[in-house]
């Protein structure tokens, strides 16, 4: 890509959502359940027939406001997490409103201003919010054309919208601002709204430079970590050394006397220190940590015996899929067991938040993925009415799921309550993020399948053991501060829930045509290690297992892995991404040089979002156990491609992050404490291990629904890596990650 491909948006002042814009609109007041990500029942949408998030928030003026001066503001309940949605959502609105993206002011997740779209999670921003904005914008344009038609006495068919104006015959021209009367847009969305045809697109699918990058590369204010409010003070928390430790003894007097220290906040087992200067807070935090004595108990499972821990901890079995007959016989049956360790989000910037209590109203600037649910949990924790708490999303470091964001917001709020009138900035230290973020749950997968004489799979059994993959707020007990504070809010209990989009069982059902299948989730309710949503939820380990097993079956069938997959696939879009990947990679079954291998994998994320296939070439150094991925090719179909470069960026990122998880990552713990406290104890991908090339091909389907893409690569990448290792060495590794020690042990070095 070069500069000429990316006409830049005009720059806008950075908006911390500080309340300059005050609008009123109607929001349907219920908390959305997120597909598969939130415990409990899903409330029915207010208008189930409306597309995207319009079903929950049908009023047009909740999404789009046009001022008398023609200024256009678009509201989304979703947050920018680094996916580029501040740009792509503007593109979508601009397309239907017939303006340039730069003409649109976009307000993102803020409980005082935007619709409640639950969490920014599950690769659903474009799918849900983008679809809502698209339809709302199209309808707004049609309303404006109708108004102009009345005003000018000209049939709407003779009018067109362009550049923020409605233009008619004989040079007639009316600005949008002239056409909007009060409450004009205070109408519900119309499901029959007609969208622009793909052949008329000016903006969708075209390259636009991301609006946020110029500030980020020149030292502009871009993150919640960068906020500096007048009279702001700095806080640090002191965490217990282990999840269940309790504070036995503390001498805080000496800490209160330290330079700059304003307060030591103690509430049960919650400890924090506040100082005028940030480094003073850091020094006081260290002193406070040294002054605290904790009582700990051994409450963590034996990391060497996780398989038996999972089996003995499962309390119920949910049927994810049961199709066809039982006990089918065939020519050959094989089985396998796969393990996935607890893995970290590992945000580069530790979680942070700013909170201020003023006149019984708490305002929190947070990089949470869900301003509304976080507000609910924090309000409960503080015993405040939710309407007195405002959560405003400000970008943080990339999160990849439920990291420490919500907890840092709660920390800031609890500390700010002790210093009314002063904005309190909290930033976690590295070891606090590493030790206290909720990890992607450890999992175990057992597979058994039968081939017929013709090399087709006739029977498939798949059993997975897992915790829930979401402990998002939730109640106050979902927050670390809520659990530690004197009231000790209990952790929300986890329940087994099988949903179409999946949780631990996400992508547990193979998309392949298999006539007889039994798929079960052995549910583990207790969570001695803190867990929650990590990019892809169960899809990462399920796709890894399924795709590894598909290659084993292909070997048994004497088939090429790609041909074997195509043999079991009728969905033309799935076939297409597989064929494009194989072609672009130059896939063949020819033998590779010694210790080199190629691997292939595929999944349709959640079995309803983006289709993604990937091929990997790698080299294995048996002596060192070092694996080096050299080339990666992937093809992805996420429906209509709004921002192709962002799709490529997200997919490259997903591939590299999944390579990191798969090659290196496992959270370690002893019977009492988590021990992966920094980047040396929990290494991740560095540049030396980055492949020589990654080619991502976007298979565009203009005019078709948006399919979420940001998490689509996680599972297939792990599968392709595993299969390339198998291809290179003739051996398979079943337990993640593919550490050097495990590689050497597997190869008998």
């Amino acid at each position, binding site marked *: 890509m070069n*500069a000429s491909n990316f006409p830049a948006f005009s720059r806008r002042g950075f908006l911390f959502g500080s309340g300059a814009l005050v609008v009123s609109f109607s929001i349907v007041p219920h908390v959305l359940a997120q597909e598969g990500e939130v415990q409990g029942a899903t409330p029915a949408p207010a208008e189930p027939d409306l597309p995207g998030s319009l079903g929950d928030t049908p009023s047009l003026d909740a999404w789009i406001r046009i001022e008398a001066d023609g200024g256009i503001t678009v509201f989304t309940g979703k947050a920018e*997490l*680094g996916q580029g949605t501040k740009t792509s959502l503007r593109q979508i609105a601009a397309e239907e409103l017939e303006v340039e993206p730069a003409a649109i002011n976009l307000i993102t997740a803020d409980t005082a201003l935007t619709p409640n779209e639950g969490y920014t999670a599950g690769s659903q921003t474009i799918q849900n919010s983008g679809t809502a904005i698209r339809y709302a914008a199209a309808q707004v344009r049609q309303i404006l054309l109708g108004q102009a038609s009345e005003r000018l006495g000209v049939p709407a068919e003779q009018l067109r919208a362009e550049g923020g104006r409605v233009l008619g015959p004989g040079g007639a021209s009316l600005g949008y601002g002239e056409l909007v009367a009060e409450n004009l847009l205070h109408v519900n969305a119309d499901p029959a709204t007609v969208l622009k045809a793909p052949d008329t697109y000016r903006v969708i699918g075209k390259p636009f430079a991301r609006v946020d990058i110029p500030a980020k590369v020149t030292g502009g204010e*871009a993150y919640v970590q960068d906020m500096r409010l007048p009279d702001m003070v700095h806080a640090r928390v002191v965490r217990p050394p282990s999840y269940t430790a309790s504070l036995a003894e503390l001498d805080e007097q000496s800490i209160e006397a330290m330079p700059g220290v304003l307060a030591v906040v103690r509430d049960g087992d919650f400890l924090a220190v506040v100082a005028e200067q940030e480094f003073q807070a850091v020094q006081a935090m260290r002193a406070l940590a040294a002054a605290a004595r904790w009582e700990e108990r051994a409450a963590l499972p034996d990391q060497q015996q996780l398989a038996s821990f999972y089996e003995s901890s499962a309390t119920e079995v949910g049927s994810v899929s049961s199709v066809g007959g039982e006990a089918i016989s065939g020519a050959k049956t094989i089985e396998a067991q796969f393990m996935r360790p607890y893995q970290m989000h590992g*945000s580069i910037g530790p979680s942070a938040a700013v909170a201020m209590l003023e006149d019984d109203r708490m305002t929190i600037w947070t990089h949470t993925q869900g301003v509304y649910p976080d507000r609910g949990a924090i309000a409960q924790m503080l015993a405040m009415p939710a309407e007195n708490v405002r959560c405003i999303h400000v970008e943080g470091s990339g999160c990849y799921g439920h990291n420490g964001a919500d907890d840092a917001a709660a920390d800031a709020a609890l500390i700010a309550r002790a210093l009314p009138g002063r904005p309190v900035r909290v930033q976690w230290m590295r070891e606090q993020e590493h030790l206290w973020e909720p990890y992607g749950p450890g999992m175990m997968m057992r597979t058994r399948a039968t081939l017929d004489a013709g090399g087709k799979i006739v029977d498939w059994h798949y059993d997975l053991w897992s915790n829930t993959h979401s402990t998002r707020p939730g109640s106050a007990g979902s927050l670390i501060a809520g659990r530690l504070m004197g009231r000790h809010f209990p952790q929300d209990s986890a329940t087994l829930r099988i949903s179409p989009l999946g949780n631990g069982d996400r992508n547990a059902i193979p998309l392949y045509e298999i006539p007889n299948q039994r798929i079960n989730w052995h549910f583990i309710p207790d969570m001695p290690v803190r867990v929650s949503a990590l990019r892809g939820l169960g899809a990462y380990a399920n796709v890894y297992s399924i795709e590894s097993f598909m290659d084993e079956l292909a070997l048994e069938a004497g088939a090429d892995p790609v041909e074997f997959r195509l043999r079991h696939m009728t969905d033309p879009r799935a076939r297409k991404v597989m064929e494009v990947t194989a072609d672009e990679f130059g896939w063949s079954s020819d033998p590779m040089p010694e210790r080199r291998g190629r691997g292939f994998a595929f999944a349709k994320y959640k079995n309803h979002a983006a289709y993604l296939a990937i091929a990997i070439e790698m080299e294995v150094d048996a002596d060192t156990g070092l694996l080096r991925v050299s080339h990666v090719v992937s093809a992805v179909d996420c429906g209509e491609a709004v921002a192709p470069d962002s799709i490529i960026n997200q997919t490259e990122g997903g591939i590299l992050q999944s390579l990191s998880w798969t090659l290196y990552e496992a959270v370690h713990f002893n019977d009492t404490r988590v021990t992966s406290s920094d980047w040396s104890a929990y290494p991740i991908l560095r*540049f030396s291990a*980055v492949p020589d090339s*990654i080619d991502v091909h976007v298979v565009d389907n203009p005019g078709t629904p948006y399919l979420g893409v940001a998490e689509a690569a996680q599972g297939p990448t792990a599968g392709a890596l595993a299969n390339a290792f198998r291809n290179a060495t003739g051996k398979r590794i079943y337990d993640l990650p593919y550490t050097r020690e495990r590689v050497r042990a597997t190869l008998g070095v």
Partner: protein
Amino acid sequence: MMKLDINGAIHEVEADPSTPLLYVLRNDLEMNGAKFGCGLGQCGACTVMVDGKAVFSCLVPIMLVEGRKVKTVEGLGTIDDPAPMQIAFIEEQAAQCGYCIPGMMMRAQALLESRPDASDAEIRTALEPNLCRCGTHMRILRAVQRARELMKTAAAPAANGGKA
């Protein structure tokens, strides 16, 4: 009171001499470019240049940089007049969340100022201390390669002024 040379300007700061440079940059001088990532020299988010070399500003106390020239991403160029390194990252759209990017840029800048013809392999090796969790590595490498070319031609004005 210590006098620090930051991006060519002398700043008098009141902070304790043992304060890591990062905290002084971010708080006393209200600069956003250098980021807190680990405080341990393991991730590179805080990377700045001191006398032309890339250093972890989270580890270096200000008493060690008095009398030396500190350069941060703010010292490369501005949003209205970006430097070649910044232009390259914008042109390559080399960011996802972007939190690690200023550290990447400063480490790359230090390399290219000392070795303008650094090879692609040398760029990769130089960036090894810096972590990116979004997986933007391919674009970061491309951006630094582009910056290498832009920096060579920076003296001779290009037809488009070298701007994005």
